[in-house]
């Protein structure tokens, strides 16, 4: 049995890679590619008559495989299916770090899942509150209710948009410039930031279209997403490279954090760095830059 450390609600989640929980060859070592989180899928990737089998496979994978620092999230089946309760039981019993609620449309959906998770934590003797939650918004209603969903539970660490279902609902198709989902992405980001949780973009499915993928990534970064859902390991590196801070940003952040530590120790609240006025409000951003720099293998100056 592999003991997993207590999941952190806020951590680096640039890349979340989907893996069919039913495929032993895939899930045995998906972490070697270096994604931040892997998303073991009980939902769309698993055929309706194999849901049971996938759970047995998932349980033993969670209990046996050493995923190391890679976060392990499980996507469970929707609340409109007969599967989700047992999905939650197996996730909690197996010690998954978090659960992704598919097709989430309301705060009530989150609370329903949360109640089942709590019950499972009690049943299996898992630390109460250990299992984190995130929600996938796949419908116009889900997007419109984004804020209440994001703030529905202390277990919520993030929210993601799911492009396939959403576009179908909106009667649109993938557009290279992202105009099809611009409003939804923007609304979800605002809601997530207002609720203080992370926000992830949808998968990019055309694996041969490297240019399109890069364009979407650049837009994701510009809009302020924390990370992206992925379907293939080859997509990991471009995300990590693009989401990496620039050297200039790292140097600046280092100066800010170092100066802040020095000044606050001396009791000073507001000070200047390179002629710019700095106060405590700048610190979380600078620390985030340094964490990102460390994860990207850049020099963090030992300040993280």
């Amino acid at each position, binding site marked *: 049995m592999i003991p997993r450390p207590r999941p952190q609600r806020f951590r680096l989640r640039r890349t979340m890679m989907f893996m069919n929980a039913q*495929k*032993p*060859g895939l899930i*045995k070592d998906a972490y070697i590619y270096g994604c931040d989180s892997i998303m073991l899928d009980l939902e769309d990737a698993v055929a309706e008559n194999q*849901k*049971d*089998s996938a*759970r*047995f*496979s998932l*349980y*033993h*994978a969670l*209990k*046996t*495989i050493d995923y190391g620092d890679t976060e392990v999230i499980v996507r469970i089946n929707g609340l409109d299916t*007969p599967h989700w*309760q*047992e999905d939650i*039981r*197996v996730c909690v*019993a*197996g010690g998954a770090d978090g659960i992704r609620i598919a097709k989430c449309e309301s705060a009530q959906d989150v609370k329903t899942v949360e109640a089942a998770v709590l019950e499972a934590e009690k049943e*299996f003797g898992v630390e109460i509150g250990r299992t984190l939650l995130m929600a996938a918004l796949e419908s116009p209603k889900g997007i419109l209710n984004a804020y209440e969903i994001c703030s529905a539970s202390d277990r919520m660490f993030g929210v993601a948009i799911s492009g396939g279902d959403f576009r179908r609902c909106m009667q649109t198709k993938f557009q290279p410039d992202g105009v099809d989902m611009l409003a939804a992405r923007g609304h979800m980001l605002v809601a997530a930031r207002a609720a203080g949780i992370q926000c992830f973009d949808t998968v990019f499915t055309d694996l041969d279209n490297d240019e399109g993928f890069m364009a979407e990534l650049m837009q994701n970064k510009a809009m302020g997403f924390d990370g992206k859902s992925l379907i293939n390991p080859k997509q990991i590196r471009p995300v990590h490279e693009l989401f990496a801070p620039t050297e200039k940003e790292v140097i600046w952040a280092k100066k800010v954090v170092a100066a802040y530590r020095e000044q606050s120790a001396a009791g000073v609240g507001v000070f200047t760095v390179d002629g710019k006025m700095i106060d405590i409000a700048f610190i979380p951003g600078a620390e985030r830059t340094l964490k990102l720099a460390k994860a990207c293998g850049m020099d963090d100056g030992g300040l993280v």
Partner: protein
Amino acid sequence: MTIEKSAVAGTLESSDAMVTVEPSKNGIELELSSSVMNQYGRQIKAVVLETLDRLEVKNCKVTVVDKGALDCTIKARVECAVFRSCDKADKNIPWGGAVR
């Protein structure tokens, strides 16, 4: 558990195993073929028998066609086949109990 009808779990893909359980009255009868028989046949046999024992299956004909599955996969396939044979695979699985 009592094997009430024949049931199958798993696939013949690489790194997987296909496990079939059938009712029997003669204790546990194991038929095993494996792509890694020489080096892991004994271990696979032990995992299958231990798993059946944990599930308190006393009588069962079990056929395993292994394509290089890890122990955790073999366990999962045996358990699923047994629960399916009793129509109990869908809910209230004793995770961490008989299934561990």
